């Protein structure tokens, strides 16, 4: 802001003049754009004829919004942004990590471990369901999916728009193998991961030669194929009806039900579905931690470095003797494996799976979380999942909006609108995501974060 205040009045006059000019211009454009869409309305009269009338007031509102909006953007918004940018440039120098920032992951972990207890303590076993299940588990599933996709997109730089396919493979592996063969969750969890990894390789082979847009399209198609197979192979998958009454997960053979040897009875607690949810919460937390641990370890291993090098420059990788085929395949397979774990967990949690849970929108949301978080950064992705998934869950809670917008208003329906708006905003202010910098995997004297302006997004 200082820059604006310090400058003489002359540029300010200029700014207002420019604002008025651009405002009028925007108004004219808005008039042209909205004249037919908003200004004219067609309806049928009693004689079934199409008549039209003008809505000058509505049109005027739109034009005025456009004109005033543009004026404000030019006179207030842009100088503010410019000042911010200048500030940011000055701040780059002292980008040293504060102690708080370092302790943050540990604090978050302690909070997560205590979270179900807090929820039960504050809201009682039944009341805790909402917090543990709708918020806790839901967000953690997306954290895990985000971290899994991060290996493919964030580290290896391979744009995958069909990640939900592996989530589906994991979920259906558990659903089918447990209902048909009665295998337990603990056997099927690793098996689902392996099966998903296998499908990751199957996808990997044909797309190895593809890059960028082409790769994205083919992975998208792969996601759709898996979904269509699930819908149409109805002998096995029961098609759109989905598979219901999938067995629950057990804790060392102890079931979470109201029976005599169920968890609640054994512990001498009143029967409640809350215990199962709390168990699931810790389970998904453990799975997330496993994903994070493996990712962090892999990044410091040659394979992880090769992934990142692949993202930076594939040709240079080949010139250094790196087999890019196997490197890409392992990225696909390991990313898919975590998607498979998450999928089997999802099936165990819901007790019901259907192809509706594995639509393209899910892939898009997971990818959005990775991009918003800052590709490659675990912390950033976790924050993005918290904001995006937690935010949309919060929408459900906003009953008070009904008072404002009328009783027909269902806030959940605006989920995607808000998701999109949030994305645009974050990308405007932090084009590299919440965490734009990259932690080096090795250092000689001191570990310095690599600014996002040097890293590449990969080309496929």
């Amino acid at each position: 802001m200082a820059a604006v205040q310090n400058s003489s009045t002359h540029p300010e006059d200029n700014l207002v003049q420019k604002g008025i000019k651009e405002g009028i211009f925007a108004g004219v454009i808005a008039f042209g754009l909205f004249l037919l869409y908003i200004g004219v309305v067609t309806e049928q009269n009693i004689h079934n004829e199409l008549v039209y009338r003008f809505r000058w007031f509505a049109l005027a509102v739109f034009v005025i919004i456009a004109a005033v909006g543009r004026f404000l953007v030019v006179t207030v918004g842009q100088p503010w942004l410019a000042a911010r940018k200048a500030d940011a440039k000055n701040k780059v120098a002292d980008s040293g990590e504060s102690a708080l920032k370092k302790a943050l992951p540990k604090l978050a972990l302690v909070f997560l471990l205590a979270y179900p207890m807090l929820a039960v303590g504050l809201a009682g076993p039944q009341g805790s369901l909402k917090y543990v299940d709708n918020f806790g588990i839901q967000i953690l599933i997306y954290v895990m999916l985000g971290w899994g996709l991060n290996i493919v997109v964030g580290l290896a730089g391979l744009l995958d728009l069909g990640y939900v396919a592996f989530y589906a493979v994991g979920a259906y592996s558990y659903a089918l193998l447990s209902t048909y063969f009665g295998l337990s969750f603990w056997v099927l969890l690793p098996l689902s991961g392996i099966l998903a990894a296998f499908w990751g390789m199957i996808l990997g082979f044909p797309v190895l030669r593809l890059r960028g847009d082409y790769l994205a399209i083919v992975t998208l198609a792969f996601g759709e194929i898996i979904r269509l197979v699930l819908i149409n192979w109805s002998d096995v998958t029961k098609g759109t009806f989905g598979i219901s009454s999938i067995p629950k997960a057990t804790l060392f053979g102890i079931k979470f039900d109201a029976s005599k040897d169920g968890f609640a009875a054994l512990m001498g607690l009143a029967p409640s579905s809350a215990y199962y949810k709390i168990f699931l919460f810790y389970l998904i937390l453990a799975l997330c931690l496993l994903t994070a641990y493996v990712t962090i370890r892999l990044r410091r291993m040659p394979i992880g470095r090769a992934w990142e090098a692949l993202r930076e420059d594939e040709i240079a990788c080949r010139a250094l003797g790196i087999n890019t085929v196997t490197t890409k395949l392992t990225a696909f397979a390991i990313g898919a494996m975590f998607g498979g774990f998450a999928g089997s967990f999802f099936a165990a949690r819901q007790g019901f799976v259907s192809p509706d849970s594995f639509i393209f929108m899910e892939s898009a949301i997971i990818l959005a979380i990775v991009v918003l978080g800052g590709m490659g950064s675990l912390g950033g992705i976790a924050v993005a999942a918290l904001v995006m998934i937690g935010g949309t869950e919060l929408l459900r809670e906003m009953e008070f909006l009904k008072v404002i917008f009328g009783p027909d208003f269902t806030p959940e329906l605006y989920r995607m609108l808000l998701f999109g708006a949030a994305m645009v905003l974050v990308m405007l202010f932090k084009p590299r995501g919440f965490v734009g910098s990259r932690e080096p995997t090795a250092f000689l004297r001191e570990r310095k974060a690599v600014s996002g302006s040097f890293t590449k997004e990969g080309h496929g």
Partner: protein
Amino acid sequence: MTMAPGNTTMSKDDIILKVEHLSMKFGGLMAINDFSFEAKRGEITALIGPNGAGKTTVFNCITGFYKPTMGMITLRQKSGKEFLLERLPDFEITKKAKVARTFQNIRLFSGMTVLENLLVAQHNKLMKASGYTVMGLLGIGGYKAESRRSIELAEHWLEMADLIDRADDPAGDLSYGAQRRLEIARAMCTEPEFLCLDEPAAGLNPAESATLNKLLRSIRADAGTSIMLIEHDMSVVMEISDHVVVLEYGRKISDGTPEHVKNDPKVIAAYLGVDDDEVEDVIATVESLDGGANG
């Protein structure tokens, strides 16, 4: 086995790379036309020629990025093992045949630190030590020790390239000259027997050029790596190369010591340019040569 070129008499052992009848066609364009030469072990061989002569294409054929239309490229290692490079996929040429290269337009991993760039270059060795990731992930096997050794090797080449103070900075943050040296250091971390450098001195200032020359000489002396380089700066070529091959329109027009090439009238006419008062002389010479060839 001796390596120094002066010590042994000329024998088959002295030849590290042999290119025979190499041709590369792009559609209707013959970028390289029946090109043959030999590079000797322990020497610096320079490949020169005007822009578009096909020098980079020769490198791309040697390092497997292009599959030649015709011809044979044989690499003979110190151990006596021979590889037919035109039959190997690009990454195996580095991995097995031990040929490393740099690019005319620098290709660094700019978002990774200088040190990380050098560690990526040791991928295959580290991959093996980490039991193809499995053992390393579980913390068993010799990965830790190998990883320490790889950092030592990286440090060695950082010292040589005068980059040790920048080890923890992003590669994209280095100056142009430093990026060139880093690319060479990175290639050396693959522990090559034969190193191909595509215009390493292009765009360098005289001071950077001198540092580069020092680096190249120490590579030849300390690591025993034979070097082949494409260069435009004639002072660099004349100063450091033992052997010069001249290419024009995909054909070899001269081959020999720097002295020999410098005085070859065909080279002078094609590439070096000539002093104003010598122009007529050279044209006359070239015309008489051409006339002889045609008639």
